[in-house]
């Protein structure tokens, strides 16, 4: 990964964004959702939060535009440049621009969200069957009002679930008409229009009046693209006309004839040779979610990566699922640190109170008298009560005290005085700021008192308050097939066993290298414990292997001498 010169980054973690306009290619709800998901990609792995503003200046101002769109870097029509964004800072800095000459989708063809009908806004299902015919796009068949519709399941005949597709006859977006439908014909500068037009605009966006006269009422909106309409060319937003004539030949589907770049196009009238009206046919399009996640990476301070699998690699490729690569995560965490703490939840105070008087046992007390409960403990979210946890991310001993980690929090059991009960929760990020919320394993080196934390394929080392990392566990000599280190066990001075899956390795802590002769099978060395233990640690001279709520305790002769509950025996709940 790379960062901008001077490691440009936001000086606050609560970053704001604002969507200034929308593309006609997708419903605004889908666009909002794509942006929100793109931000979540980054907030999932960093301490950043993103809040949407609806007016005023946000850190990240998001807009769609074509060609010259108001900054020094014009777009270039369909394909080629898809979007750009500026590194963090004031004004234009931090902003993200998307080329609206692209066909924006979710990456797999037109993403058509329905309105009205009976499908509650579900997405169209293509292909779908209607009266025995299969449709791969919205259709006006079966209707007399010319409104395009689709089935939201594979078979309309069977399920009868449907909704209306984007159409200027149904609604507009942007403008000043609150989404009202177009009115055709309408008058603009004395001319009559019976379809959406780009006249009067320099940005190429199609618009219409929402009353019969724009000249009189000045009410307008932008026309949503239909899923069958062309992009680019000189007939943006109009549907293909099949069959059409081009160069004397008749075509009944999109063609790349006449073009050297192989792109599919169609005529929007019956005869291209006469009318010269054309556009590119709808294709898979570009995933707005993926491109936005990439651009937001720039807006947060990341430059292009040279790792082909990284989201921050400059060339677009469609992928399913979570798009971040290890490289992207390391990049954002280099700038902002790891994500710590659980998802924000409203605090619910837990109070331990003196009991209300029992009227039967205490007849002197007036039963109806209001009594103020006495709070004896600090408010704690019950969800953060160690005794409510079924399973911990890791358990280890630090400074002689048993520590229990879970989702950015930890509890500790003071040594030698377990009567006090467990203390906490405490925030991992406050004590070890670089450590991410989920700690797979941890150990304190008995010689140096350094504390090692493992999360996924990375680890951090803390000496007191000073942290180093993350570093890749591959640097220690663990193979790249190890996805996480699930347990760590001190074996004498300077040696630690690291557990993952059914194997363990021995780490020479001083050399920071795995010793030769490893991995070994856990069940060969430690018979009788679960092979899928997710916590392994040493406590008071005995080894504990945990699975879910249970532990298997092994004595110094490597005999399992007890199986018990973490909650009751270790946490003293």
């Amino acid at each position, binding site marked *: 990964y790379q960062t901008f010169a001077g490691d440009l980054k936001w000086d606050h973690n609560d970053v704001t964004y604002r969507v200034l306009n929308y593309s006609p290619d997708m419903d605004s709800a889908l666009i909002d959702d794509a942006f929100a998901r793109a931000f979540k990609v980054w907030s999932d792995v960093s301490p950043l939060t993103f809040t949407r503003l609806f007016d005023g200046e946000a850190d990240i101002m998001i807009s769609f535009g074509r060609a010259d769109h108001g900054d020094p870097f014009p777009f270039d029509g369909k394909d080629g440049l898809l979007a750009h964004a500026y590194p963090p800072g004031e004004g234009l800095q931090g902003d993200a621009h998307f080329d609206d000459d692209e066909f924006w989708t979710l990456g797999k063809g037109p993403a058509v969200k329905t309105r009205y009908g009976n499908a509650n806004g579900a997405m169209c299902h293509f292909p779908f069957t209607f009266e025995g015919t299969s449709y791969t796009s919205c259709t006006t068949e079966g209707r007399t009002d010319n409104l395009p519709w689709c089935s939201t399941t594979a078979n309309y005949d069977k399920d009868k679930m449907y909704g209306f597709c984007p159409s200027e006859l149904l609604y507009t977006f942007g403008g000043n008409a609150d989404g009202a439908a177009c009115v055709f014909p309408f008058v603009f500068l004395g001319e009559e229009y019976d379809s959406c037009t780009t006249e009067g605009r320099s940005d190429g966006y199609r618009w219409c009046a929402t009353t019969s006269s724009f000249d009189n009422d000045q009410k307008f909106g932008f026309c949503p693209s239909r899923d069958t309409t062309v992009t*680019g060319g000189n007939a943006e937003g109009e549907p293909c006309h099949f069959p059409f004539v081009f160069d004397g030949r*008749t075509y009944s589907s999109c063609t790349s004839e006449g073009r050297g770049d192989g792109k599919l196009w169609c005529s929007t009238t019956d005869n291209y040779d006469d009318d010269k009206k054309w556009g590119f046919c709808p294709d898979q399009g570009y995933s707005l979610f993926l491109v936005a996640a990439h651009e937001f990476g720039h807006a947060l301070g990341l430059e292009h990566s040279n790792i082909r699998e990284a989201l921050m690699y400059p060339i*677009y490729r469609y992928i399913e699922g979570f798009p971040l690569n290890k490289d992207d995560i390391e990049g954002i965490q280099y700038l902002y640190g790891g994500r710590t703490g659980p998802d924000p939840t409203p605090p619910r105070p837990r109070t331990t109170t003196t009991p209300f008087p029992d009227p039967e046992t205490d007849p002197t007390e007036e039963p109806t008298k209001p009594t103020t409960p006495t709070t004896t403990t600090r408010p704690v979210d019950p969800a953060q009560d160690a005794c409510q946890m079924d399973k911990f991310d890791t358990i280890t001993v630090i400074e002689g005290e048993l520590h229990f980690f879970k989702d950015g929090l930890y509890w500790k059991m003071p040594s030698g005085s377990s009567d006090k009960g467990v203390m906490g929760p405490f925030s991992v990020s406050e004590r070890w700021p670089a450590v991410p919320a989920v700690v797979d394993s941890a150990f304190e080196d008995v010689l140096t008192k350094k504390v090692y934390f493992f999360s996924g394929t990375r680890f951090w080392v803390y000496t007191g308050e000073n942290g180093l990392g993350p570093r890749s566990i591959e640097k220690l000599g663990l193979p790249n097939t190890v996805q996480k280190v699930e347990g760590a066990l001190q074996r004498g001075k300077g040696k630690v066993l690291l557990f993952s899956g059914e194997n363990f390795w021995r780490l020479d802590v001083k050399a920071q290298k795995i010793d030769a002769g490893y991995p070994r099978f856990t069940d060969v060395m430690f018979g009788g414990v679960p092979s899928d233990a997710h916590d392994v640690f040493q406590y008071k001279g005995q080894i504990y292997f945990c699975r879910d709520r249970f532990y298997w305790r092994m004595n110094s002769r490597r005999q399992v001498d007890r199986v018990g509950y973490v909650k009751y025996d270790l946490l003293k709940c």
Partner: protein
Amino acid sequence: ISKGKKTRYITFPGDVLKNLTDSELAENYLKRFGYLNTEHRSGFQSMVSTDKALKRMQRQLGLEETGQLDRATLEAMKQPRCGVPDVAN
């Protein structure tokens, strides 16, 4: 479709023309994405040669570093991508 008629390429009205030669395409690409700086801040001409710029671009995109405008490099230059320069100015 009537058979036997030779395909001819036409200029579509309203099309954003990109019919550049390979070397024009490469030069534009290298300049646009920061590999080929034409000027220093002082205004003197840069000495970065095209083959060096190509190598930098090939390294950045994980291609074989030939320093030549080979097919893989040209293909990479034609791929849809982000408009932020790869090499900061």
